[in-house]
């Protein structure tokens, strides 16, 4: 069981633009399959994640395609099926919780239980309060709750009617780090217990990778890659995905100047900088894009005698930013007109005693280069 989706939705600046045949402002083209697992919709703001979620929920109507959930057709453009939201059996948690301010917690949870027997309803509310660990808050109004508590109530309300799928639209974006970590665990536990498809939107990559069974990467209204967190993190399919998963240094369309099958390496040339990388498993084209994460650049003193070793370049420190546990350095590669962003642990940074405009050596770790 799960969700099978393949649909499109167009946005026009004005309604009349559609009739006049003017190009839409934004097109969402979403194709994905999700089983009884926790799938994260990951991407920047404005890439179509929320629109996709709203199309699945029925709050928005797609312009074409199909959405099937657990074998039930929610939407089919050809057959003109568009199941109303009310009949879709889903739990939806909104970014701002959307708890009804004029009802206490119990009434909020009970709102989705219309038609239930009074005793069963009472029992279910108790069960939900226990599940989300908010037993003492039943009589409170939303304005009397903290952000984390509100989110728990929103989850309890969404889950109370026993939905077939759970949709969460950036549920933790307004919460502090500690509360967020606890709630992430809670969501994972809930998914494991209920075994239903859970779609979770986020633009935070730490959140995406700690919670997901599967990641669906969105960019510019399209699904760019679907895979396990490891797959997406280590093997991004293109530069958009690579950038999202923290590969800050990206060099697109580098020319493959040497393919050494014996040594298992390839040499890439890009803006007169040559780097050697591990030979990829996929078929090599004439041009490849590659990238390296800031933490995979090694910084060595300018006096180090490894200057002529593979993938090592002379560089100058242009600026430094303190990130707390580490420092981020902007480096200009000498005579190559390239910039690299490196991240250095505080300990190694102190040992090197670097200042702005200091010279150093930068080594691009061969085995850590990401090719796509």
């Amino acid at each position, binding site marked *: 069981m799960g969700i099978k989706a393949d649909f499109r939705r167009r946005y026009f600046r004005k309604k009349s633009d559609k009739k006049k045949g003017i190009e839409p402002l934004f097109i969402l083209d979403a194709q994905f399959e999700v089983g009884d697992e926790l799938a994260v919709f990951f991407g920047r703001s404005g890439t179509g994640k929320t629109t996709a979620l709203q199309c699945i929920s029925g709050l928005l109507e797609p312009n074409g395609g199909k959405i099937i959930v657990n074998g039930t057709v929610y939407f089919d453009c050809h057959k003109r099926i568009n199941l109303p*939201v009310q009949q879709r059996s889903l739990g939806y948690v909104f970014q701002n919780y959307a708890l009804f301010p004029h009802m206490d917690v119990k009434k909020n949870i009970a709102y989705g239980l219309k038609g239930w027997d009074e005793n069963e309803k009472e029992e279910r509310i108790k069960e939900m309060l226990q599940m989300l660990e908010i037993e003492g808050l039943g009589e409170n*109004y939303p304005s009397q709750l903290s952000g984390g508590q509100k989110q728990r109530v929103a989850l309890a309300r969404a889950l109370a009617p026993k939905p077939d799928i759970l949709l969460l639209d950036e549920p933790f974006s307004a919460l502090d780090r500690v509360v967020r970590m606890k709630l992430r665990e809670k969501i994972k536990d809930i998914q494991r217990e209920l075994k239903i498809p859970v779609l979770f939107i986020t633009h935070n990559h730490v959140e995406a990778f700690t919670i997901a069974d599967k990641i669906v990467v969105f960019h510019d209204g399209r699904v760019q890659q679907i895979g396990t967190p490891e797959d997406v993190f280590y093997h991004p399919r293109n530069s958009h995905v690579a950038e999202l998963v923290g590969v800050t240094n990206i060099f697109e369309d580098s020319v493959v100047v040497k393919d050494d099958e014996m040594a298992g390496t390839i040499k890439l040339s890009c803006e007169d900088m040559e780097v050697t990388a591990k030979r990829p498993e996929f078929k090599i084209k004439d041009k490849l894009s590659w990238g390296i994460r800031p933490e995979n650049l090694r910084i060595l003193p300018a006096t180090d005698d490894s200057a002529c070793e593979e993938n090592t370049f002379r560089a100058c420190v242009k600026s430094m930013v303190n990130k707390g546990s580490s420092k981020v350095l902007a480096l200009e590669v000498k005579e190559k007109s390239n910039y690299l962003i490196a991240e250095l642990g505080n300990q190694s940074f102190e040992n090197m005693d670097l200042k702005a405009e200091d010279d150093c050596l930068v080594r691009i770790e061969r085995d850590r280069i990401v090719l796509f």
Partner: protein
Amino acid sequence: MFDQIGFPLLITLKIAGLSTLIVAITGMVISYILARRDFVGKWLVDILVTLPLVLPPTVTGYLLVVLLGKKGMLGSILYNLTGWTIVFTWQAAVIAAFVVSLPLMVKTTTAAIEAVDREYEYAAFTLGRKELDTALFITLPLAKKGILAGIVLSFARAVGEFGATLMFAGNIPGRTNTMSISIYSAFQAGNSELANMLVIILILMSLLSMAITAKIINNWKI
């Protein structure tokens, strides 16, 4: 004494009360539709409802006579069928009050409903609730301050209604002489003692209704 003060007071409360009740119900329906639905000719409905707010009340009264009078477009049908005409009855005063106070209710309530975050309604839909259910239990309760303000304004407008009522319901002692009209008559007749008395009663009534409204709103948390 009753004829001069008691009757105008009671007939005013009866007319304003009844018209406000009708205004409140129709106003909420119209406002909800204007705030939440898109349809062809929405602007026309908006204009028609708002028109009495900008028209001089005498014009509104005149139009009501043209429409509902004995020889009017709808009035003549009613007269031919039943032999009864609404002109110069207390029911006519209710209709006049209704027409002039509806725009105040609709304008205030529409703004209040538009201010309710649609996410609450979407949340209700995802919880399986239909639109009518959501409107009654989520949208309108969340817009209740604006709705109450609309009701108070409509009631005040109905109590103070003069021009359209005079045109459409007349000034018939013991039938349609409301407070506002009685004050005018007393003033015209040089009976300043009666005029003062009626004016004081109207001012006290207004103060009381404002105090009650403020008390209610203060007790509402949301």
